[in-house]
């Protein structure tokens, strides 16, 4: 049984269900639960739903401390860049305590934030910062691309005993899709093949999955069969599923909204260059944002972003190359 839901609503549904299931789950952030009319506040009360000031270091740090001592906080951070003012808490506190304590302490906190909002928000609000977190041992990073994944991964993020950065993509907020009814958990660390194909593997996350699927559709009309793999979590990264796909197709195009050297694409490229090299019949091709900050004006913003045309072109270019390795 499934029903149609929007991506944003699917996330909210998972939070509500987990809060109903487990009284240790609490939820707070800026600009939420302002009045008694707030539906979450009505449901769960002032103890568990809280309004926080613009104090990300304290907000996240408090989430960590609360998690260390028995709660399972979800911290609503709105835009992922706002974590940067508190970045020590994210990458040098939350993921360290379990390890530094020799396994005594657990930090089950979820840091929820939207990202990649390329809609005229300019240089400081439109970025993709997952690359700064996906390689931190002890930290999990989730980037859902569909309403069903959004729900299933949020459920698992809340239940996970590790700090989890849950990054939802702003441009997908209103996208609709089928979501299984009732409890629905997707394990963290398992990629999903969003489209089967045989000629080329496209790996993409979040908004770029949507663009890649659209590109694959266009390619199909030209007789090119593209497989689209969505890692769904960048940490842990399911290298195996990606390499399996490359084994089948022999070609890899990586699509990433971030500039090249701050992308997840380069990390995946590195893994495949090591573990899937033998299957590669053409160079890996990365379709990333152009190396600039995000400009305000629309034509420039569009210019820097990956899009269907660029993906189609990249796929064709790797298909044009026959086994080139000397």
């Amino acid at each position: 049984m499934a029903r149609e839901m929007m991506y944003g609503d699917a996330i909210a549904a998972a939070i509500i269900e987990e809060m109903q299931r487990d009284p240790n789950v609490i939820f707070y952030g800026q600009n939420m639960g302002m009045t008694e009319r707030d539906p979450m506040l009505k449901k769960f009360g002032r103890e568990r739903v809280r309004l926080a000031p613009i104090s990300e270091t304290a907000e996240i740090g408090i989430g960590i401390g609360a998690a260390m001592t028995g709660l399972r906080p979800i911290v609503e951070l709105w835009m992922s860049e706002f974590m940067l003012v508190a970045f020590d808490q994210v990458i040098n506190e939350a993921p360290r305590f379990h390890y530094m304590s020799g396994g005594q302490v657990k930090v089950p906190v979820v840091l929820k934030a939207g990202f990649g909002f390329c809609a005229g928000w300019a240089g400081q609000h439109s970025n993709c910062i997952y690359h700064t977190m996906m390689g931190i041992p002890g930290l999990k990073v989730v980037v859902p691309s569909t309403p069903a994944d959004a729900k299933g991964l949020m459920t698992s993020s809340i239940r996970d005993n590790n700090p989890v950065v849950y990054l939802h993509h702003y441009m997908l907020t209103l996208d609709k899709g089928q979501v299984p009814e009732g409890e629905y958990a997707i394990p963290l660390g398992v990629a999903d093949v969003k489209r089967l194909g045989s000629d080329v593997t496209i790996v993409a996350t979040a908004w770029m999955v949507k663009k890649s699927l659209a590109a694959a559709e266009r390619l199909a009309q030209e007789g090119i069969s593209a497989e689209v793999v969505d890692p769904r979590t960048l940490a842990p990264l399911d290298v195996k599923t990606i390499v399996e796909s490359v084994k089948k197709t022999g070609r890899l195009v990586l699509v990433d909204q971030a500039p090249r050297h701050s992308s997840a694409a380069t990390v995946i490229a590195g893994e495949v260059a090591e573990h899937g090299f033998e299957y590669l019949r053409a160079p890996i091709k990365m379709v990333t944002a152009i190396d600039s900050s995000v400009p305000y004006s629309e034509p420039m913003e569009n210019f820097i972003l990956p899009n269907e045309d660029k993906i189609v072109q990249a796929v064709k270019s790797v298909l044009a190359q026959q086994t080139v390795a000397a």
Partner: protein
Amino acid sequence: MSKKEELGKDKLIWIYTQMVRIREFEEAVKNAFIEHPGAIRGHAHLGDGAEASIVGTLSTRNPTDMVMPSYRCHGYPIVLGTPLRKMMAEIFGRKDGLCKGYGGSMHLADPANHFPGTSGIIGQSIAHATGAGLTAQVKKAGQIVYCFFGDGASKQGAFFESLNMAAVWKLPVVYVLENNQYQAYTHYSLEDANAVAGDPLSNKAAAFSIPGMTVDGTDPLAVREAVSVAAERARAGQGPSLIESKFYRLSAHGNVITVPPLPTQFPEHEAVAVYGNRAELEEWKAKDPVPKFRSRLIGDAVLTEGKAKDIEDAARAEVKDAMQFALASPMPAPEEAINYVYA
């Protein structure tokens, strides 16, 4: 300099003129969400309600003093003489914009007019302004810095760290905490410990042993008086001060956050939309600094109705011209995006 009586008629008229120019500009930006849907992208924030505070503060400014507010930044460069044409074109993302379309509403910058730039990340610009104060001190150029930031920003670590350093280094900075009573959708009384206790936010000055005071931010002359003292202190090398200027944001926080292709729109004020408290909004509309100062100047015979109207008409014409200029300006070419990555 700090007494109302000493203020010449010209200065009073200058203050009113700048207030009106800001108000007209912001109204035009707000209207553009109806008249040109989708033309302003991202998030735009208006300064209506802040006019008395901005102009009262900057009326104490010497020609090379620097001004560094947050992302709600339209009002200040208007006072500094930045051409409205360029400002409006920037807000519309045009090639002839102040920042050539790279920055938009949140990131106006006009260093030639002593307006080095703004940040959209809360509280961070307080540190930048403090750094401008360091430049002023090291270069001994006789400048001071006016640093503006919100009530919300005063809960960000950057605020506390910066004021401590400015106090220890005795930097020439005047910190103006613009308490417009809202942090986005949150009333300040819900998130500030001073406010929860019924204390003014200027109490935070005690954490740095610097002067702190709270002033009526709807009265440009009251603001001017308080800021004068702080500015003189800064000029004399005695270090920073903290002034809480209390007024009311008259429009909503900013346009609704929409996912494209939905066009951006401007919503109702949070007092009504979130808190269902229309009375609060009406109460503060009655204290609107622009008509209030107008009445006062007319009452004090500094202005006549006719002269006031001339000022308002001129501002309206200037803004209309700016709007036409902006709309006529071309979009930047896509591939310009790769410029200015490195200096």
